[in-house]
């Protein structure tokens, strides 16, 4: 066991180029999907990453997973940079990072049985001799609450919740150090959602899973995460303990986001003050200079438009707002 974070992002930027022209293709701009994100995930910790669609939270996940090349910044796994690693080293490091996707209908190969799906990573990484694979697959299935006798079935024979269990088992097959879960429950019905959340909490307790949990449903994030990071337009606006950030948000964006979430309690819901933001987020191809939230912020001042506010410690968390102390 080493000290320090298991996963760390330093100034991660992932931009997607915009091209124009047909014969002379040239880059005319870039979508700044992720624009300077830093955070650290401690061993055994669950960090929730929340934000609206287009804020870059999924691109953060895909950058960590090396599915898209980062434009700048570095990603460290147990203190070692993924960017500086040799291809052979990266192959091993990549094994330590696994992902669970949102849609269990799209993320499983319909032509592979559960057994084949779960055996593939074990065999591909030559982690165990073929004769042990059966036992390991049985173990994995039991761990995620699926009966091993279902191993020869195909994904279409399972319900959405069961498929998500298979996807989680696949992610766990290689005993990863970090699991990145991108909206793992948002495609599921309420009663099934609870089963998968329980499974993730359980796995965390039993095998000490470290997880980056990406979701837009803040009540789910609060339930499962130790800390929460709120993203807007490719940057982190506020990060801190889940209770602090969700119960007592500081950043004007976090406040608006949390006040927009309906709560399933008629009296409280009807009594509360809602901050309704006007308009849509600006395009990440053309973010405003200065604070990314300035175009919709009710507290905006001239100085917000000058420089991008850095994440700075405030009231037991970090906030990227120059007016954090005033509002």
């Amino acid at each position, binding site marked *: 066991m080493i000290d320090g974070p298991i996963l760390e992002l330093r100034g991660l930027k992932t931009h997607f180029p915009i091209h124009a022209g047909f014969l002379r293709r040239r880059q005319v701009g870039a979508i700044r999907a992720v624009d300077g994100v830093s955070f650290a995930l401690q061993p055994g910790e669950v960090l929730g990453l929340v934000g609206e669609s287009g804020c870059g939270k999924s691109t953060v996940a895909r950058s960590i997973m090396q599915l898209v090349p980062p434009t700048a910044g570095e990603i460290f796994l147990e203190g070692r940079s993924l960017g500086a690693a040799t291809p052979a080293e990266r192959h091993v490091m990549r094994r330590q990072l696994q992902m669970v996707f949102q849609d269990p209908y799209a993320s499983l190969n319909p032509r592979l049985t559960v057994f084949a799906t779960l055996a593939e990573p074990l065999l591909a990484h030559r982690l165990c001799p073929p004769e042990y694979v059966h036992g390991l697959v049985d173990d994995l299935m039991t761990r995620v609450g699926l009966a091993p006798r279902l191993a020869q079935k195909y994904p279409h024979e399972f319900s959405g919740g069961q498929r998500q269990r298979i996807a989680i088992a696949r992610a766990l097959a290689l005993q990863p150090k970090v699991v990145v879960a991108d909206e793992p429950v948002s495609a599921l*019905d*309420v009663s099934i959602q609870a089963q998968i959340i329980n499974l993730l909490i359980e796995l965390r307790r039993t095998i000490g899973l470290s997880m980056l949990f990406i979701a837009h449903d803040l009540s789910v994030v609060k339930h499962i995460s130790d800390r929460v990071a709120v993203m807007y337009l490719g940057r982190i606006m506020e990060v801190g303990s889940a209770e602090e950030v969700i119960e007592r948000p500081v950043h004007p964006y976090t406040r608006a*986001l949390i*006040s927009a979430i*309906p709560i*399933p*309690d*008629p009296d409280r819901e009807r009594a509360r003050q809602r901050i309704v933001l006007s308009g849509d987020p600006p395009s990440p191809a053309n973010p405003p200079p200065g604070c990314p939230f300035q175009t919709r912020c009710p507290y905006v001042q001239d100085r917000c438009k000058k420089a991008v506010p850095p994440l700075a410690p405030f009231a037991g968390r970090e906030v990227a707002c120059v007016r954090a102390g005033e509002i």
Partner: protein
Amino acid sequence: MPLLEVADLRTYFHTRSGIYRAVDGVSFSIESGETLGIVGESGSGKSVTGYSLMGLVPSPPGRIESGRAIFDGIDLLKCSPAQARSIRGRRIAMIFQDPMTSLNPYLRIGDQLIEPLLIHQKIGRRDALRRAEAMLEAVGIGETARRLRQHPHEFSGGMRQRVMIAMALITEPELLIADEPTTALDVTVQAQILELIRRMQRERRMAVMFITHDLAVVSGLCDRVQVMYAGRIFETGATPEVFYRPRHPYTRGLQRSIPALQAKGDRLYTIPGLPPDVSKPMPGCPFAPRCESAVDRCRSTPIRLLPLDTGGPARAQACLRVQEGEL
């Protein structure tokens, strides 16, 4: 007299793999100016209920087997096509979940907005466009003259849903059927759209039938709630009654499985098992296989939605054991 009275609606889908009883004996009514929430998980028949009223059930395989839906003295399910056309789209309008697919990508927003007016009212194109401009403004879209000439791809998701609402409301309907209108949207946009529906309803005394899986949205918006499962209504009543004093075991289970209402990190209650296969005949309660309180009687006795003594008018539930005073 209620604005709409639905009695014993049954909509079945006749497929090669059997008869799917999507809606199986549903009765309810809506008063003008009232908001009725219809809550259920996927496959509960809540959307098909809306489709049946709008004549949108694909036939074959779908067929409305029985029932009445009386709107202003006219039975929507049995009236002549001409009569139906004079009501649907004009006096009853519907908005759908996915604003990305329910607008025609080839047509300008203006042309789509005025289509219901040109069909249903004696009005010239120029006047219709003027009404469309006013309507866009009412739903919070600026620069209306330019916007009317744009195509759907030039609008964001929230804006498209606003256009859908504008299109539904332009004929000033008395009843709006909203089928998960905010499910595909971010929470901040959802808050805008819900506020818009609330305002439109106040201004026009319109009745709203709000179909959703999200109990939290219902809690702030709806006067009454109706919980559906396997094509039946399980429980109905004034929103605070159903939220604070749920009687049916399914409603209780559903409420206990929402993370927002539970202490952080606790194991969530999960309803065991899977939603029922509505192609199998179910002589008793369709929830019995998953219900912790089920006894043998529940599996054989047909369920009936019966009024409760407490909780005001329109308070009813369908659990046999609650009706017999055992739960």
